[in-house]
C-alpha cells in the first residue's frame, strides 16, 4: 500500500479512506505533547501504514497515560480540598514547627534558665503527644470514615469528569465510565443539564448580561425568563478565561450525598457527604423553591456569598413528599461580595475540623480540641 501511495503521490491514509484518521490525530497530539523526544511528526502516516499494530499499541498506551494523568489530577485536587485533610495537615505542620523550634533551642542554646528549660521540655512532651494523636486520627479517618460512605463510588466518576474539564467540558466531551453502569446516572444527568443550559444561555452573551445585573441570580432569571436553578449552574460553570467571577458549586440529594462539587480556594467541599449543617444548601430543603442568600464566615475569617435553592427532581408521586435536590453556589469575588449581607452565618467545613466550641449544630467533637 505504501508503494502504491508513493507511486500515486498520495498519503497512505488517503488510500484507506481515512480509516486511520483518528489514530493519526491521536498520535499527532501525543507527538506534540512529547516534543522533547523529537518524534518524526511528518512521517506519522507512514508509520501507521507500515506498522499498524505498533501504531495502535502506541495510541492505546497514550490514551491510558492521558486518562491516568487526568485521574491523578482529579484525586490530587480532591486531596487538596478535603477539609479534614487540609485542617489536619495544618495542625500537624504547626505541631512540627513548635517541636522543631523548641528542640533546636534546647539543643543549641547553652544557658537556658532552669525554669524555661523545664517549660520547653513540657511543651515538647505535649506537642509530641498531640502529634501522635492527630496522626492516629488521620489513620482512623482513612481506615474507617470513608468505608461507611457508600455514595462515593456512584459519584466518583462524575466528580472526576467535571474536575478534569474544570467544570466546562467541550461539546464533544464524553465521560469514561470505569466502574460499570452504576456510574452513569449522576454523570449523565449532570452532563445533560450542562448541555441544555449551555445551549439556552451561551456563556459569551451571559457574561455581559450577568455583570449588568450585578451577578444577581433572581434578576437574571427574570431577565432570561428561566429558572433560578439554571442561572445558578450557568454562573458556576463559566469558562475560566472570560473574566467572570469564580463561583464554586455543590449539589446534594436529600441524604446529603454530594452529587456535584466545584470547590474554590476560599471554600473547601466534602468529597461525598458531611459538610457543615449550617450551610444554606441544607436549610434550603426546608423551603423548596425559595432562593436563600447568605454570607458564610469560616473559622479562618474567610467569607463567601452563597445562593442556595432546592427543587423537586421529577414529577413526584401521589401522597408522597417530593424528592429534592439542593444546590448552592458561592463566591468570594469582590464584584459578588458587594451584595453580601452584613451579618454572616458563622459556619465551618465539617464538625471534626471546626473549632467553634458552642455551635448548636455540632454532632462530633473537634478533632484537635
Amino acid at each position: 500500500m505504501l508503494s502504491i501511495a508513493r507511486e500515486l503521490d498520495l498519503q497512505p491514509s488517503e488510500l484507506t479512506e481515512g480509516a486511520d484518521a483518528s489514530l493519526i490525530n491521536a498520535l499527532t497530539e501525543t507527538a506534540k505533547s512529547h516534543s522533547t523526544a523529537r518524534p518524526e511528526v511528518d512521517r506519522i502516516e507512514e508509520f501507521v501504514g507500515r506498522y499498524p499494530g505498533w501504531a495502535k499499541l502506541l495510541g492505546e498506551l497514550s490514551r491510558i497515560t492521558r486518562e491516568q494523568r487526568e485521574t491523578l489530577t482529579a484525586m490530587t485536587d480532591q486531596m487538596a480540598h478535603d477539609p479534614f485533610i487540609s485542617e489536619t495537615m495544618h495542625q500537624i505542620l504547626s505541631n512540627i514547627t513548635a517541636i522543631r523550634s523548641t528542640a533546636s533551642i534546647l539543643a543549641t542554646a547553652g544557658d537556658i534558665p532552669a525554669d524555661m528549660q523545664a517549660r520547653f521540655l513540657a511543651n515538647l512532651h505535649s506537642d509530641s503527644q498531640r502529634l501522635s494523636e492527630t496522626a492516629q486520627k488521620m489513620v482512623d479517618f482513612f481506615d474507617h470514615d470513608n468505608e461507611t460512605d457508600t455514595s462515593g463510588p456512584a459519584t466518583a466518576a462524575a466528580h472526576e469528569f467535571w474536575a478534569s474539564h474544570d467544570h466546562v467540558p467541550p461539546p464533544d466531551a464524553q465521560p469514561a465510565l470505569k466502574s460499570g453502569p452504576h456510574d452513569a446516572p449522576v454523570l449523565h444527568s449532570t452532563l445533560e443539564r450542562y448541555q441544555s443550559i449551555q445551549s439556552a444561555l451561551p456563556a459569551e452573551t451571559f457574561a455581559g448580561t450577568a455583570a449588568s445585573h450585578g451577578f444577581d441570580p433572581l434578576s437574571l432569571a427574570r431577565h432570561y425568563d428561566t429558572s433560578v436553578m439554571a442561572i445558578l449552574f450557568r454562573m458556576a460553570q463559566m469558562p475560566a478565561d472570560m473574566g467572570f467571577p469564580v463561583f464554586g458549586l455543590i449539589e446534594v440529594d436529600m441524604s446529603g450525598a454530594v452529587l456535584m462539587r466545584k470547590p474554590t480556594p476560599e471554600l473547601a467541599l466534602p468529597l461525598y457527604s458531611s459538610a457543615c449543617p449550617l450551610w444554606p444548601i441544607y436549610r434550603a430543603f426546608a423551603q423548596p423553591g425559595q432562593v436563600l442568600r447568605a454570607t458564610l464566615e469560616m473559622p479562618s475569617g474567610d467569607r463567601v456569598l452563597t445562593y442556595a435553592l432546592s427543587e423537586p427532581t421529577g414529577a413526584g408521586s401521589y401522597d408522597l413528599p417530593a424528592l429534592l435536590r439542593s444546590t448552592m453556589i458561592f463566591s468570594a469575588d469582590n464584584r459578588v461580595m458587594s451584595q453580601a449581607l452584613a451579618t454572616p452565618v458563622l459556619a465551618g467545613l465539617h464538625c471534626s475540623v471546626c473549632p467553634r466550641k458552642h455551635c448548636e449544630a455540632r454532632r462530633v467533637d473537634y478533632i484537635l480540641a
Partner: protein
Amino acid sequence: MHERVLLIEDEPHIVEALSFLLTREGLSVSTHSDGSNAAETAARLTPDLVILDVMLPGKSGFDILSEIRGTEGMAETPVLMLTAKGQSRDRAAAQAAGASMFMTKPFSNREIVANIKALLA
C-alpha cells in the same frame, strides 16, 4: 533601644519558642493570639516588624494584613507571614495583601531569625 516585634500567632508553643529566640537576639517581643482584633493591637503598638500567621481564629492573616496596611504609619512596616500551606495561591495572596516576606512552616530557627534581621536592616 530594642527594636519591637509583634508576633501574631495562635499556636502557644510556637509563640513561646519564637519569643524566647527573638528576645535573645535583642528584640522586644509582644504577642497576640486572636485574629479578630489583631490589627487594633498592631495599630496601638506600632511595632518595627510584624510576624503574622495566616490561619488565625476569628480572622484570616490576609485580612489582618490589609487592615495593618491601611493603618496610619504602618503602610511600610515589614510584615513576615507564616503559613502551614505553601501553595502558590497563598504566596500570591500574601504578596497582593502587601506582605514583605512569606515563610512556610515548619521553618528552622536560623532561617526565621535571618529573615527577621534582613527585614529590620
